[in-house]
């Protein structure tokens, strides 16, 4: 082994420093791999698919009654599009299953946006035909892959169209830009649409990277057609954001931890190498006196830093990849693709970058070691030059404090640069803890806010599913055709089905969100008889539940009967009902789920981000994603539609709701009445608040005895726990703990160096009678002041980072964050966090303090 190699190996015997360097590098690399990997993984599938399909940057919808096809076609030139497709005739219809692979016959599916296209190709939005073939004749339709429970061969009847035509699904196709939910031939579309059709035009632009650019293009399109002819336009950025949502939501805070880890890594490694150079000055002198060149000495000290850094980087790559597994699993579910992994280049590049940073950091002190004059190095002892901090010692010595305490408090002033290192390390740790604690508090708040969608201690279902509460039999959503479907029951799922898996676009808190297709409705009329277990199936012996009445009046009577029973039930404090139905909103190709409230719901409202709760009909609240998609704002007017009927409503508030990609409208029941729309009877729920002291379980038991004869059922409302939030909490907690451990190790390392340098003074103190406890006290108090100072610095920085990252996470998730969930740092939280700096510092100092206490006095006194 070469001489340099031996020196490098000797560095490995400095176990504490080596462990600290390895850990800091591990933290930095694992967090960076995770962040970069998630970023890459979240973008790759959409970007690849979008490029391959020449996806539409802008999808515009026009009122066919207000503009001609020729004018629509001309908008491409007017808006400066580089490519365009269309105009395609469009119509939104609600089909009913006649025969289905996964769905029983007679199920009314949510409204679907149909487009008439002769083929799946073209200059824009080249559809991937994933199964079957393209529709080429009347009676054929192609359904969107991964977005419905339909399969090839399924038959659908369009009861709302003259002649109630039945179409056969001949293929499944995927549009990355989600241009429509189904396609048929132009002729068939015209037959289905009648006079109520619209036009769809798809555009690609040279400059479409930002929302502002797309807004400008939208304006250009709008200007090219008569006023009101452009009924809506969807940006690909919205689809992209939705597709990337889950992983992208993780990115801001993981990036934050990655940056913190890298800062910590550079800091600690710089300190460790500087410290080892300072502590081994005589050794360097000896090495040079026996013939080491400056370059060899420099290489030796860089090598001492690189060995543990390489180990830490390798472990960090593994840890980063492992930590990414659960997050990317959700992402792959969303795309319906094979499980995603961290891109290989990320696992290769990140550790290289980190190691280069380590090498550069170590280079400066190593170069200093190489340049030390041999004679000077040999002459210099290990004891630091005296003189610094004397004034502080004198002042503190006058304070009425035990001497070990005043000696300890004065210690940082003797070595300001080293103390600054401790402050920086602990401040980074305190910053991480503050950020992590704030994140956890905010996420918990957001989870609570999301759970407010389902208010009340008890929820009663007016038309209970067969099998009773939580039992099987009710189909809120047809079984998914592929893994891209939601993995859990929808929001309207039966009791006990509240906490299903994350939905397709599960951002933070989205758990068990409604499926893509919303709520199918059971219909009457001709067609095959419903299959056992299907929605609306009359209850069989031993089962609860009833088929909903067929007329609005009968539904209302049934609801009144149930709510009357609830009102009369002892323990009931207050209640209101909700119901839901799929309706259309101008400007959106897909339907939205309208949640209608009836009764005084002021105690059980959604979390309002901006604006206010509705106070009458004609007012709606919508999620952030709705506003982003439609370009509307609170205060604007929107047009709701159902079965050709329209109603203008005012958006009075923005609510926290991550379900269904924001295709949600919250309103008063009277708003739907004005639209002539009835909520799905099976979705009607009664949200019940109980008197103080009333137990939910016993209340439910008693209430169910009353409701059972009415075909209704109640259950205790169980709060949802989002797997995404749990994953975020776990990841943030892991990264926070790692950061704190490394901060503590930084303190430990610095104090080890300090203790070594001051071992002679320590020997004097002990010879004069300083007890082990006093020694420990002295060492611990030597970091107490710096710990408090670091806490005071780190906590505000952590708060600032939290305020920066949380809204970014919200944007990634497609929602605004209510201010109350951002401003989570009250005095009761901040004070312990500041003391957290002290705890980190003291924890890091415990081992060196113990070592100092155990140092043999005679040995210490001999050390010069």
């Amino acid at each position, binding site marked *: 082994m070469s001489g340099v190699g031996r020196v490098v190996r000797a560095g490995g015997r400095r176990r504490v420093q080596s462990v600290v360097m390895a850990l800091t590098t591990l933290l930095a690399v694992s967090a960076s791999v995770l962040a970069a990997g998630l970023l890459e993984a979240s973008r790759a599938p959409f970007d690849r698919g979008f490029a391959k399909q020449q996806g539409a940057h802008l999808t515009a919808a026009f009122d066919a009654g207000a503009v001609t096809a020729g004018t629509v076609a001309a908008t491409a030139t007017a808006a400066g599009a580089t490519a365009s497709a269309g105009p395609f005739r469009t119509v939104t219809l609600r089909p009913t299953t006649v025969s289905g692979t996964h769905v029983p016959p007679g199920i009314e599916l949510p409204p679907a946006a149909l487009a008439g296209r002769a083929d799946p190709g073209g200059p824009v939005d080249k559809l991937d035909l994933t199964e079957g073939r393209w529709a080429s004749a009347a009676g054929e339709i192609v359904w969107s892959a991964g977005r419905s429970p339909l399969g090839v061969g399924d038959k659908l009847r369009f009861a709302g169209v003259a002649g109630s035509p039945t179409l056969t699904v001949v293929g499944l196709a995927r549009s990355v830009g989600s241009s429509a939910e189904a396609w048929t031939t132009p002729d068939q579309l015209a037959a289905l649409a009648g006079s109520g059709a619209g036009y769809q035009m798809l555009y690609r632009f040279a400059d479409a990277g930002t929302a502002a650019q797309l807004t400008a293009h939208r304006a250009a399109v709008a200007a090219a057609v008569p006023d009101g002819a452009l009924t809506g336009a969807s940006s690909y950025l919205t689809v992209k954001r939705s597709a990337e949502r889950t992983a992208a939501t993780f990115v801001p805070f993981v990036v934050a931890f990655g940056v913190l880890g890298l800062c910590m890594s550079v800091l600690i490694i710089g300190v460790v190498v500087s410290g080892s150079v300072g502590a081994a000055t005589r050794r360097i002198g000896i090495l040079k006196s026996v013939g080491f060149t400056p370059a060899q000495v420099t290489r030796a000290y860089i090598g001492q830093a690189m060995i543990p850094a390489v180990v830490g980087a390798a472990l960090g790559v593994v840890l980063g990849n492992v930590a990414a597994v659960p997050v990317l699993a959700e992402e792959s579910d969303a795309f319906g693709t094979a499980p995603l992994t961290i891109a290989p280049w990320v696992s290769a590049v990140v550790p290289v970058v980190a190691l280069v940073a380590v090498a550069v950091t170590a280079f400066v002190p190593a170069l200093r070691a190489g340049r030390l004059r041999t004679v000077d190095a040999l002459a210099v002892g290990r004891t630091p030059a*005296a003189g610094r901090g004397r004034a502080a010692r004198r002042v503190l010595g006058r304070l*009425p404090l035990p*001497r070990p305490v005043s000696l300890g408090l004065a210690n940082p002033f003797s070595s300001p640069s080293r103390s600054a290192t401790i402050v920086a390390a602990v401040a980074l740790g305190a910053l991480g803890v503050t950020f992590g604690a704030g994140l956890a508090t905010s996420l918990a708040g957001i989870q609570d806010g999301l759970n407010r969608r389902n208010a009340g201690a008890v929820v009663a279902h007016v038309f209970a599913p067969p099998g009773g509460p939580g039992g099987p039999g009710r189909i809120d959503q047809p079984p998914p055709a592929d893994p891209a479907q939601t993995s859990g029951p929808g929001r309207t799922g039966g009791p006990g089905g509240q906490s299903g898996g994350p939905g397709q676009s599960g951002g933070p808190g989205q758990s068990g969100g409604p499926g893509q297709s919303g709520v199918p409705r059971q219909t009457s009329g001709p067609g095959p008889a419903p299959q056992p277990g299907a929605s609306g199936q009359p209850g069989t012996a031993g089962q609860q539940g009833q088929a909903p009445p067929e007329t609005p009046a009968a539904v209302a009577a049934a609801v009144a009967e149930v709510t009357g029973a609830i009102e009369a039930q002892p323990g009931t404090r207050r209640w209101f009902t909700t119901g839901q139905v799929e309706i259309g909103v101008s400007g959106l190709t897909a339907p939205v789920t309208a949640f209608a409230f009836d009764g005084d719901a002021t105690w059980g409202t959604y979390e309002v981000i901006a604006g206010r709760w509705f106070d009458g009909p004609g007012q709606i609240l919508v999620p952030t994603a709705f506003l982003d998609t439609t370009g509307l704002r609170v205060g604007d007017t929107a047009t709701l539609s159902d079965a050709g009927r329209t109603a203008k409503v005012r958006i009075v508030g923005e609510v926290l709701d991550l379900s269904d990609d924001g295709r949600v409208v919250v309103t008063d029941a009277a708003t739907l009445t004005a639209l002539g729309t009835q909520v799905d009877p099976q979705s009607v729920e009664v949200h019940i608040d109980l008197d103080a002291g009333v137990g939910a379980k016993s209340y439910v038991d008693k209430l169910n005895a009353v409701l059972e004869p009415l075909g209704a059922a109640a259950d205790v409302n169980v709060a949802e726990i989002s797997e995404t939030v749990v994953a975020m909490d776990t990841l943030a907690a892991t990264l926070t703990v790692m950061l704190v451990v490394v901060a503590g190790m930084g303190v430990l390392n610095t104090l080890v160096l300090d203790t070594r340098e001051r071992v002679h003074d320590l020997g*004097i103190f002990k010879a*004069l*009678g*300083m007890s082990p406890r006093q020694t420990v006290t002295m060492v611990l108090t030597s970091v107490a002041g710096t710990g408090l100072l670091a806490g005071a610095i780190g906590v505000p920085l952590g708060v600032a980072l939290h305020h920066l990252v949380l809204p970014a996470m919200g944007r990634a998730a497609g929602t605004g964050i209510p201010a109350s969930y951002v401003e989570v740092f009250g005095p009761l939280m901040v004070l312990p966090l500041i003391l957290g700096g002290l705890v980190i510092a003291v924890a890091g100092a415990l081992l060196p303090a113990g070592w100092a*206490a155990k140092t043999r006095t*005679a040995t210490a006194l001999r050390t010069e």
Partner: protein
Amino acid sequence: MSAPRIQNSDMSEPQVPVSAPRIQISDMSEPQVPVPAPLIQISDVSKRYDDGPPALAGLTLRIDAGEAVAVLGASGSGKSTLLNLIAGLDRPTSGSVTVDGVRVDGLGEAASAKYRRARIGMVFQFFNLVDDLTVHDNVLLPAQLAGVPRTEATARAGELLERLGVQRHAKAFPGRLSGGERQRVAVARALMNRPSLLLADEPTGALDTASGREVRDLLTALHRDGQTLVLVTHDVTLAHECATRTVELVDGRLSRDVQHTAGGVR
């Protein structure tokens, strides 16, 4: 420069919980008669470091209160080891060390620290003053570690600095003092808690001739004042002038034990 004359003082305020007979720096004109009780009893003590030869090999030694014992010997003879064992800084491999009624060899770290605080004053060859503390603060240190109230400790420190002739340097840092002055400060610090035993390890070893003489005179005066003294030295003159008894170690064994009056063999 002659050693400062140590004056009578009020020693009626013992602050340190010392159980042994307290020997005070008092009237130099009335030397107290040494109490013939064993202040130090070393019984068959051996000390071995790692696999090397024993630093001490079956040493037995008794030192009474009021004695001034000089331990002579060549380098590696075990002198400093003996001093460390008496001070509780180290433990024997075998045998027992009893000082002032306390089995020092069995003390834990904390008890050993309290023992030193209460009973031992130490003077080192290289002074071992804390460079970042003033002379006054250095002298105060043992009392502060023992929890002596500040006003009393300050008064005691001032008194000692005055007696030892270094009061004018009270606010100075040790680095600015001469070797002799530093050693006097070290002696003042060693006496701060009124120890029953003063241990000195080559107290003149790092001093020039004049400073060495100052320290010799100081130690002589202390002994005359009744202070029990054990000093380890190569300096035969120091041993003869300060000590009433000289023991010599060779390879960790007692080779000579001579009683004499300070200034000459008895």
